[in-house]
C-alpha cells in the first residue's frame, strides 16, 4: 500500500511542515507549509540549521523543487526562514497565501497596511519609552513578530525559480465549499475554510485603533511633543496663579499617579495586534487519498466559531484523520468542542511548539490533557514521540524533525 509522509520540523515556537507524496514523475511531490521561528524562542535547533534542513529535504534528482508552497500568515514565527539565504534556486510550482496578502485587493491592502503601520508605530514608541532593558527586549521581541517581515514576504511574493503563480485564498469569486485541485498534485483536494471574508470576522483582523493607547507612536512621530499651549499658560505648583489654588488632595504625589495610568497598556496593544494578524491565517483542509488533514495556521476564536457553525465544514471535519494544532497549543486556538466532537479515534495530531519562559501557559496543559484523554496519536515538535511518529535528532541530541507516514 502506498503512503505519504508528513514531516514536522522542530521550530520551537514556530511552524514548518513538509508533505511528501509519491508520484509517477520519477520524483516525489512536495508541499511546504510555513517556515519560521519566533525570535523569543531560543530552545532547540537554530533557525539557520532548520532552514538548511528544509532546503536539503526539497532537493532531489531534479534539483530543489517545491510543488506547492503555502504561507498561512505573515507572522515571523511562520515566515522567518524565508528571510534566510538559499531559496533563490528553489523551483516552486505555486505559492498560496491568505487573501489579505493580495497585492491589489483594496480591503486586503487596508488590513495589511493597518497591521504593519500599527506594528512599526508600536516598535518606535516602545523604543522611545524609558523601559527597563529586559522588559524592552521582551516587548520588542514580541512586537517584532508582527513587523512586515519584508525580506521573507518579498521572496514569497516575487522570488523563487519557475515564476510560480501566486494565489490568494479564498479567491473572491470562488464558490464556497468547492475544493481547489492543484494541477501539480493529482488527486489532491484542498478546501479553504479561512480566512473568512465575512465582515464580522474581518473586523478581528483590524488591530484596534492605535490612538486608543498611550503607545500611539505620536511620541515617536517626532517634533510634536510640545505642550499644546505656550509658556505663557504654563505653571508649576510654585508658580500657580496667586488668586487660585490646586485642590489640597491633588499633591505632587498624585501628579505622578496620573502619569502612571498611561504606562499600563503597552502589552495590551501588542497582544491585540498579534491577535489581528493571527486572524488572517489561511485554514486548509486537505483531502489526500483516505486522509483528511486540517492545517489551521494560528486561527483563533473568530475564525473557528465561523467554521464550526458552517454545516458544510461540520460534515467534512467529522472525517478528520490528522490535525495540526493551531497557535502552538495556546488556549483558544483549538476549541474544546472541536477536540471533543471532531477528532476521531486514531487521528494523528502534531503540535508545533516550544517552551518560552515568558509564556508558561503555551502549550496549554488542559489542551494536552484533553488530547491525551482521547484515543489519538499525539506528537509535539520538541519531544521525541512514540509510534506512529519517528524523530530525527540533531548533533546536540535535540529533535530536528518528526515524521509520520499516512496511507493513501
Amino acid at each position, binding site marked *: 500500500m502506498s503512503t505519504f509522509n508528513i514531516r514536522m520540523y522542530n521550530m520551537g515556537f514556530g511552524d514548518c511542515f513538509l508533505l511528501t507524496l509519491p508520484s509517477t514523475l520519477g520524483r516525489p511531490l512536495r508541499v511546504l507549509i510555513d517556515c519560521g521561528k519566533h525570535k523569543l524562542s531560543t530552545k532547540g535547533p537554530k533557525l539557520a540549521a532548520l532552514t538548511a534542513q528544509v532546503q536539503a529535504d526539497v532537493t532531489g534528482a531534479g534539483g530543489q523543487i517545491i510543488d506547492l508552497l503555502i504561507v498561512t500568515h505573515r507572522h515571523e514565527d511562520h515566515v522567518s526562514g524565508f528571510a534566510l539565504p538559499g531559496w533563490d534556486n528553489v523551483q516552486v510550482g505555486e505559492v498560496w497565501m491568505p487573501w489579505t496578502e493580495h497585492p491589489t485587493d483594496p480591503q486586503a491592502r487596508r488590513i495589511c497596511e493597518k497591521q504593519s503601520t500599527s506594528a512599526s508605530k508600536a516598535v518606535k514608541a516602545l523604543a522611545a519609552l524609558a523601559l527597563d532593558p529586559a522588559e524592552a527586549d521582551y516587548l520588542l521581541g*514580541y512586537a517584532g513578530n508582527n513587523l512586515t517581515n519584508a525580506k521573507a514576504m518579498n521572496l514569497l511574493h516575487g522570488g523563487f525559480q519557475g515564476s510560480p503563480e501566486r494565489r490568494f485564498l479564498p479567491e473572491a469569486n470562488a464558490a464556497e465549499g468547492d475544493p481547489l485541485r492543484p494541477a501539480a498534485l493529482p488527486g489532491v483536494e484542498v478546501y479553504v475554510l479561512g480566512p473568512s471574508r465575512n465582515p464580522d470576522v474581518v473586523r478581528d483582523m483590524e488591530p*484596534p*485603533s492605535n*490612538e*486608543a*493607547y*498611550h503607545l*500611539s507612536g*505620536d*511620541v515617536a*512621530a517626532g517634533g*510634536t*511633543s510640545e*505642550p*499644546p*499651549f505656550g509658556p505663557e*499658560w*504654563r*505653571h*508649576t*505648583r510654585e508658580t*500657580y*496663579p496667586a*488668586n*487660585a*489654588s*490646586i*485642590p489640597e*488632595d*491633588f499633591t505632587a504625589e*498624585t*501628579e505622578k*499617579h*496620573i*502619569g502612571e*495610568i*498611561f504606562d*499600563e*497598556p503597552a*502589552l*495590551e*496593544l501588542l*497582544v*491585540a495586534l*498579534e*491577535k489581528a494578524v*493571527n486572524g488572517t491565517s489561511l485554514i486548509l483542509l486537505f483531502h489526500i487519498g483516505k486522509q483528511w488533514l486540517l492545517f489551521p495556521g494560528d486561527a*483563533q*476564536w*473568530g475564525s473557528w466559531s465561523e467554521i464550526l457553525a458552517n454545516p458544510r465544514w461540520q460534515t467534512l471535519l467529522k472525517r478528520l484523520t490528522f490535525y495540526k494544532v493551531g497557535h502552538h497549543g*495556546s*488556549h*483558544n486556538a483549538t*476549541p474544546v468542542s472541536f477536540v471533543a466532537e471532531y477528532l476521531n479515534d486514531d487521528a494523528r495530531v502534531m503540535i508545533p511548539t516550544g517552551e518560552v519562559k*515568558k*509564556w*508558561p*501557559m*503555551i502549550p*496549554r496543559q488542559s489542551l494536552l490533557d484533553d488530547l491525551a484523554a482521547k484515543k489519538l496519536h499525539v506528537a509535539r515538535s520538541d519531544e521525541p514521540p512514540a509510534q506512529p511518529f519517528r524523530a530525527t535528532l540533531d548533533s546536540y541530541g535535540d529533535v530536528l524533525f518528526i515524521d509520520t507516514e499516512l496511507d493513501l
Partner: protein
Amino acid sequence: MPIPYSPPTHRRLKVYAFDPMLGRTPLYRMLCEVPYEPLRPGPRGERIEVVDYDSSAQTYYTPVHLEDPYLLMRDGLDPTEADPRFHQQMVYAIASKVLANFDSALGRRLYFRGRKPLKLFPHAFRGANAFFHPRRHAILFGYFPADESRGGQNLPGQPVFTCLSHDIIAHEMTHAITHRLRPFFFEPTNVDVLAFHEAFSDIIAIFQHFSFKEILLQAIQETQSDLRANDEIVKLAQQFGYATGGGDALRTAVDKPDARHLEKELRPHARGSILVAAVFDGFFKTYLSQIQDLLRISTGGTGLLPQGSIHPDLAARLAREACAVADATLRMCIRAFDYLPPVDVTFGDFLRALVTADFELNPRGELGLRRNLIEAFRIRGIYPENVRSLAEDSLLWERAAPAPSTPEDISELLAEIQQEMILEAAATSRNSSLDWNPAAGADDDAESRKNRYPAIHAWARRHAAALGLHPGLAVQVAGLHPSFRVGIDGQLLVEVIVQLLQRAEASAATGGIPLRGGATVVLNGFGQPRYVIAKPLPGAAAPFAPAAAMRQARQTDYAAALTARDTFHIWQDEEFQKIRLRRLMGFAALHGGAL
C-alpha cells in the same frame, strides 16, 4: 439695612455646539445653562473640580475664574481652541449639565462618595482617548496631533482636544455617575453589563445634546432636514459629534433591527449600540407621533408637506417637539436607575426598570414613549428573563410580597431620612443657598447617615429570606436614597431606595470576578417594600433558588466565552489565569477595545 440681591438660579456658559474636530464652522456655539453655584478658579465647584494638569508635559495651565465680572457679563469666555481656560469652562459646563440632569430626574442631589468632588482633567495626557478612572476618581481627557486622515479643517499636527466635544464629556461624566450609583456595573458578570455602561453613557450624551433647542433648530434649517426620516435624525446625531466609543453606535439605529444581532454580539461597544439604537428608536417613534398634528395643521389636513424647504415656524415647532421628547427620554432613562438591581444588570432589567419607573410616575403614559420603547426593544430581541409577555404590566417589576417587614420596623427611620431630604431641598433652593454651608452640611450628613445604616442593615438581615438574600453571608448596605418626585399628574411620589449587597468567593472559573448578589429595595414612605429587585446568590430562599442557579451558570459561561475570545491571558502565567478577567474592568481597556 440694604435689601440683599437674591442669587441667580443659573449660570450661562458658552460652549462649542459641535466637536471642533469635525470642522463644522456654522453653529459653532451654544449657551449651556447650569445651576448656579459659587466657583473658585479652576473652575472648582462643590461636586466637580477642573484641574488642568498635563501629565505628559508635567505642567499646569492657567485656570479660568468664572466669577470674574468680565466673564460673568458675557456668559464666560468665547469658544476658542487656543485658550485652555475656555476648555476648562466647557468641561465644567457640560459636566455640570449632566449632573443637573441626574439631580432633576432622580429627585435628589447626587453626590460622589464621601462628597468628594470628581476631578476633571481637560488635558491629562497626550493621546486620543478619554476615560473615567475610578481609582483616581477622575476623568482624564487626552489631546493629540491631528493627522491627514482625520480632523476636517485642522492642520496636520495641530492639537485636537477630546475635552471640546460635548458628547465625549457627557459620555465620560455618565460613566462616573453610573459608577457612583452602581459601583459593580463594570464587572463583567454577564454579557450585558459592560455594554450597558457604554450604552447608557451614549444615551445620556445623545439625548442631552438633543435637548439644546437652538442648535437643533439651526441644524434643521441648515441641513434642510425635516426630521421626519429616521436616517435624517440619526445623521444629525452623528453630526453633533457623536463619535465616542467605537464611533458609530448609532449606525444600527438605521440598520434593519434584527434580534439575531443581539444573540451573537458579545463586544461591549457593539452590543451597547443595539441598546442605544433601541432607545433611539423609541424616541423617534414618539417624536413622529407628536408632530402628526403639526403636519396636518400646516398642510390643510393632508399631512403631506410640499417639496422644498419647510416653513421656519414649522421648523421651530418641530425642533421644539424633538427637544421635548429628547428631554423626556433622557429623564426616563435616568429615572430607571433607581429600579435597577445593584449588580449583574441586563438589558432586560433596564427595560423593566424603565417601564416601572415611568409607570410609577406617569401611569397613563400619554406621550406613548413607554409603549414605543417596549416595541423598539422587542424588535431587537431584548427580552427580560422570566416575564410572561412584553405587555406593560408584565414588564413592571413584581410587587413585593405583602409585608415582608412590619412597617414600623423602619418607618421612623425613613421619616428621618425624608425630613433630611426636605431640609436639604430647602437648603439648596435659591433663596437660602448663600446661607448654606456645604462643608458643614456634609459633615452632619455623614454623621447621621452612619447612624442609619446599622438600622437598615439589621432590618435587611431580619428579612433576608423575603429580600432574596443569602442568610449566611454578610450584607452590605450600599445605598440609602430618599427620592421625591412630582408625576405628570401632579402627584408627589415619595420613595426610599435601598441597595443591599452580598458576595460569594471569586473563583478561577469566573476569571477572578466574584459572584455578587443583593437587591434593590424600593420602599414607600411608610417603610413598606414596593419592589424587591433581587439578584440572588445560591443559598437564597427557595423562591429565589432557580434565579440564583441561573445567574451562577450564566456568569461561568460568560467567563468561558470571554476567555475563548480574549487572547491576552494566553501570554501570561498561571497566577494570572485566576484573575484573567479583572483586566477588562478598566474603562481605559474598554475604550481601547480590549474585547
